């Protein structure tokens, strides 16, 4: 499982409508969905949002990757479910946080799986964030695939030295990650020093105003994309106060009688 965790976040340059949407429009879109996810707490409402997001992921040809990521995180989801069940004592109530988590993942994937890290950097700068912040963000994103490769290499090397990750009790298992975590930390520190040096060599200076070679431009399509989603969010929100799982169940009971 550990061996393909990085696949979850890897951007792939595909030619789908979603990949062409301006990152600012996408950012605003995922923002309103996140807000909606937090406001609503009825399973059925969350399910509707999930369907909307999943269909967009399908358009962005990112559904498979999302599903794979989900598979990797299944133990985590089960853990959330169990912990909530223990504290809330009801299955349906404990499903809500699981669904929220799922939605959160799907929404994040909608942005990160379809947005080029370079465009993301430009977005952050266009939001007038300081260069140090936007650069750190986009570099971090940039390095996820490289880091992931490194993690994979280290895991493989330690497996070849007889490390068995899936044996022993809980604490024994945690300790087994030491031979993986330490090399990763060392590599990351080395890498960050290298990056800092290479930025300095190329004259990156946060105090100087920069001019971009590639500029982001909002097109009609980007605006429409956002407005359609805003419309969907509003409709779901308004409908949510009229229809809930309970009213639906009640309705079904009525129709039986």
């Amino acid at each position: 499982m550990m061996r393909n965790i990085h696949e979850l976040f890897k951007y792939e340059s595909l030619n789908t409508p979603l990949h062409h949407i301006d990152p600012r429009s996408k950012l605003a879109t995922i923002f309103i969905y996140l807000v909606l996810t937090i406001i609503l707490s009825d399973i059925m409402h969350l399910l509707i949002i999930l369907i909307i997001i999943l269909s967009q992921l399908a358009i962005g040809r990112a559904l498979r990757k999302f599903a794979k990521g989900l598979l990797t995180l299944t133990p985590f989801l089960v853990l959330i479910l169990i912990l909530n069940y223990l504290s809330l004592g009801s299955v349906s109530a404990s499903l809500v946080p699981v669904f929220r988590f799922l939605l959160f993942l799907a929404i994040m994937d909608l942005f990160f799986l379809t947005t080029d890290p370079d465009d993301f950097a430009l977005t952050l700068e266009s939001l007038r964030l300081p260069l140090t912040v936007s650069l750190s963000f986009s570099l971090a994103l940039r390095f996820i695939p490289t880091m992931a490769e490194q993690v994979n290499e280290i895991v493989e090397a330690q497996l070849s030295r007889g490390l068995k990750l899936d044996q022993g009790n809980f604490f024994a298992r945690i300790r087994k990650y030491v031979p993986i975590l330490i090399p990763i930390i060392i590599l990351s520190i080395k890498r960050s020093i290298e990056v800092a040096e290479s930025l300095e060599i190329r004259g990156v200076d946060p105090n100087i105003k920069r001019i971009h070679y590639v500029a982001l431009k909002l097109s009609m399509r980007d605006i429409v994309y956002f407005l359609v989603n805003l419309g969907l969010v509003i409709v779901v929100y308004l409908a949510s106060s009229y229809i809930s799982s309970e009213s639906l169940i009640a309705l079904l009971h009525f129709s039986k009688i």
Partner: protein
Amino acid sequence: MIVVENLYFTYAPQGDYVLKNINLEIGEGELIAIMGDNGAGKTTLVKHFNGLLKPTLGRVYVDDVDTRDVPISELSRKVGMIFQYPEKMFFSERVWDEVAFALRNFGYDEASINRLVQKILNIFWLWKYRDSSPFILSGGEQRRLAIASVLVWNPKYVVMDEPTAGQDAVQREILLQIINMMVSQGKTVILVTHDVEFVAEIRPRVILMSNGEVVYDGEATRLFRNPGILESAGLTQPILFKLESRLRDQGLIEGGFNTIDEAAKKIISLLGDERL
């Protein structure tokens, strides 16, 4: 013996094959160099030998055991894998623990661990560093430590991915000695390398790969006399073989040279030196 039968491999479920119809037999005590250009599939191939990767199609057998049927940890006891830049995997506070790590994983008792670690550190001139941090060693010493921490469990097959990468002339010489030592112990040694000069010095059996396929499998000498195949796989002739072919083209020699000394003698005699 490692046997590879009709091996095909792809990383992505619907992706292109990175390895295509590979068939190989690697016998006991053989010295082998797997060569080829970047992305030819060399690393992908050797990762099948200790089960890190399993065939998409076809089979890989290590001593008659199908690699799909046993865990990596079991195959690794037989097939020691030394990756490119192996010093990246260090994590211990002391050199001693770094070497003992695999032995502990494989369940050796403390007495054997003490004996084996002491022995290997002495062979690799690292005994004096046993209590030091692996991270303070020089690049060459780190590479030696990485190799020692695999050879310590005495695997029958040893795979080294780019052992000469980033090493100076002295370290290359030491590596050469280590390889000779392993061969004399009867180990099967599989080197993955671009380094034609290094291969020209040891003259192993060469498996040449290009684009996921084996395009040559045979003597190094015969391969190095054939610049056509070499270039098709992104490699050039070693200096000695370039020299040889120039002299042959001029009709000055027949055949070729096995060593630099041989070449030097021949050239001196061509110059008509009486001392020879």
